[in-house]
């Protein structure tokens, strides 16, 4: 009696089921592979199939930076006084780049500048690529910093790029201390209900010490991963106190991972913990992103006000005609100060440009 289904259909169905099982097994093998092998697989994919897309993102970032620079130059040439609202983002990026240059000058050749690229794919949260690798003496566990402080650490290094994790990663840990060196602990990430609520915690501090709100927390240099003195965050309250022997504190992070596009990565043995970077960030230079933005806005406002005052002065000085007091003194043979000194002219023009 012939079978209900043909043998071909049966065989094909069985073969498809077997192939499915094989792929599922392969996927599970991938899942349970040792971390080093997994990183090799990911690096191979990033360096081949996905390389064009990573390159596109780098190009987009470069294009944005150059657009910012050219816009700034154009503004100088045109001597524009007011910065329009739409240019705020570019001015912000310019400010960050200037700060990075300043920080790079202070740190010397132990850190190399890099552009940060975020994958934006599922599961890549808290991680990013930097466009420097072992060719520039970058090692695994090298600290990654911005002008505000510690952003994260390098996890995996390839020749021309490296993969890093920021402080929101669940595995992030940094040995830390308060700025006065009185309290030591470990800073770690605590996930919030949503990603936006991720916070840092200074854990494991001695119960008998009390850390006030607003205290700056820095890397302690213990553990040999991070150099001493990199700002991490500001204390914003006690998180918990356990059994009379331990306290932990919430920290307000100084670096917002979402806005970091240009960073500095430690080279060679800069990450061995023997270096002290405390002088790089004096106490008055440690600010959160919001404080920095407010400070920058206040500075701009002051400059604008000064520019306006000088413009008014310029108008008043320019309004002094030869018929008034100055002119009469000159006509009477007394040598007077020039009505509009060159230094004042150049100062006014310079302020207008800024």
């Amino acid at each position, binding site marked *: 009696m012939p079978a209900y289904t043909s043998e071909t259909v049966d065989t094909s169905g069985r073969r498809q089921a077997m192939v499915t099982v*094989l792929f599922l097994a392969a996927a599970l093998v991938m899942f349970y592979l040792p*971390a080093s092998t997994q990183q090799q697989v990911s690096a191979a994919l990033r360096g081949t199939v996905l390389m064009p897309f990573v390159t596109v*993102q780098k190009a987009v970032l470069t294009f944005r930076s150059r657009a910012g620079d050219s816009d700034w130059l154009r503004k100088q040439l045109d001597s524009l006084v007011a910065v329009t609202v739409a240019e705020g983002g570019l001015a912000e990026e310019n400010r960050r780049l200037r700060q990075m240059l300043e920080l790079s000058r202070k740190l010397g050749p132990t850190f190399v500048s890099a552009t940060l690229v975020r994958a934006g794919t*599922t599961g890549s949260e808290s991680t990013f690529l930097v466009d420097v690798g072992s060719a520039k003496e970058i090692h695994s566990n090298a600290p990654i910093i911005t002008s505000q402080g510690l952003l994260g650490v390098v996890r995996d290094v390839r020749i021309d790029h490296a993969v890093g994790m920021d402080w929101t990663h669940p595995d992030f840990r940094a040995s830390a201390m308060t700025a006065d060196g009185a309290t030591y602990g470990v800073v770690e990430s605590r996930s919030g209900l949503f990603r936006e609520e991720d916070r840092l915690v200074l854990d494991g501090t001695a119960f008998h010490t009390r850390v006030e709100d607003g205290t700056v927390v820095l890397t302690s240099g213990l553990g040999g991963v991070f150099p001493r003195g990199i700002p991490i965050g500001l204390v914003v309250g006690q998180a918990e106190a356990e059994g009379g022997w331990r306290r932990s504190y919430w920290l307000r992070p100084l670096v917002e991972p979402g806005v970091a596009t240009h960073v500095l990565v430690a080279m060679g043995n800069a990450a061995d913990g023997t270096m002290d970077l405390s002088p790089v960030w004096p106490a008055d230079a440690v600010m959160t992103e919001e404080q920095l933005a407010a400070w920058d806005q206040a500075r701009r406002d002051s400059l604008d006000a000064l520019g306006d005052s000088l413009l008014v002065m310029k108008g008043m000085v320019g309004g002094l005609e030869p018929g008034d007091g100055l002119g009469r003194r000159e006509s009477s043979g007394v040598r007077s100060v020039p009505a509009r000194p060159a230094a004042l002219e150049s100062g006014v023009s310079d302020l207008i440009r800024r």
Partner: protein
Amino acid sequence: MRWPLRVWVTVGLLVFFHFLLHLGLGFGNIAPDLLTISLLLAAREVGMGTAAGIGFVFGLLIDAFNLLAFGTNTVAMTAVGGAAARTRDLFVGDSFFFVVSYLFLGKWVKDLLRWILAGEGVREPFFQALLVQSSLNAAYVAIVGVLVVTITGAWRGSLR
């Protein structure tokens, strides 16, 4: 354009645009999960094994940037690919409701598997991760997916 070619061109374009939007232009979660849509479309055209294979490759590509839990996307997409191909034997799938449900559930189940595999330390709480974020993402995928198949006609049979 001939039928199978139209589907595969659509699948190829979706994969390309997924990585262009997410990785190249850095839109992140603002851009829809076009890779899952392409997997679900391709799975309706091929056998279970082939669909699982496509899911395996797609999952590996996403996991290339997944340091938190490498392999979770690979397993999830392989399983979803295989299961999605199986739905062709169970459902005719020519209704609008089916397409929306198919895309919504495909994405949600993928996220569920990923959440289960990710482990305690990495994943967010069930309510936020799956009931809120994944449900919204799945709805987003369903809407975009329906638009894609409507525009490209890359769905076997006309939608009713």
